[in-house]
């Protein structure tokens, strides 16, 4: 999946309204919408798009969207 496409689809899926768009350096925990529901949404999104199961514990350790992509595996991105 292209990185731009991933970030755009994730931005829409998580209903992030505080920012028009996100990039690799956007820090998740700085987002207004960051809460438990967002974490669960990320887990569901990654499961749906990459067939990969992440845990809340793993997501608690990430900082920006780049670290999320590292967790998913950079081989999954163009």
């Amino acid at each position, binding site marked *: 999946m292209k990185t731009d496409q991933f970030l755009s689809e994730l931005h829409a899926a998580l209903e992030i309204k505080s920012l028009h768009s996100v990039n690799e350096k956007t820090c998740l925990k700085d987002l207004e919408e960051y809460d*438990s529901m967002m*974490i*669960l949404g990320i*887990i569901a999104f990654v499961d749906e798009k990459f067939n990969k199961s992440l845990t809340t*514990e793993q997501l608690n350790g990430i900082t920006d969207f780049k670290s999320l992509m590292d967790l998913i595996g950079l081989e999954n991105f163009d």
Partner: protein
Amino acid sequence: MGWKTLINMLDLNEKNILITGASSGIGRAISIVVGKSSPSNVILCGRDVRRLEETIQASGFIPDQAKCYRFIGDFSEGHTIPDLVSFIKDLRISLDGIVFSAGIDKLMPFRFLSEKILSDLLHINTVVPVETTRQLLKNNLVNPQGSIIFISSIMGVVGQPGQVAYSISKGGLISATKALALELSKDKIRVNVITPGIVITDLTKKMFDSLTPESVDEIRKMHPLGFGKPEDVANFVSFLLSDQASWITGSTLTIDGGYSAH
């Protein structure tokens, strides 16, 4: 009131009781309380053999006073309900009390809720208890003046983000209780549903693991009396199984530490 006095009030002497979800959580606590209340026969259903045995050990069943039967089965498998009914028929036991405590949860933002997740929750939490009840009644395995209890959830009454599927599945039991109570009243079979708040069990601990500490703390603050223990629900279930509750049917009984008082 002392424990012994309470147990005397909740005497289940000579009653035959079926409990699903008996190997953990609220079902386990109910099994223990029922076991101490002098029933004749108890059938405990669970998926996990080891944990079911631990429940039986903790219940203190005295072999010459009460017989305890184990049914190992997974209600996600289609054959389990007919297998359970056959099991009870083979025992030549007719039930005076049934408690449906087996259930699952899946915290999921609504936008990501798939039809499969919704279907799975509806199957285990709603269809299984209702269909099991239907098959037991159809096979004349429930005695007149029996007591049927569905363990629902306060989430079936009020809402919370991430709980749409769970709320639908548990809310369905509340509606089923009212209709079934009226339909079975001619046989004096009582049907009631309990809606607990957050009770600390393995299921809720798993849910908490998927939340931030701030979210868990927020949920705790919504319970004026704090989170519940399985025994808080079990004691009331035992009362509903007893003859002391003979005039209670079609009722939704909330045990939630004040959660829904807001």
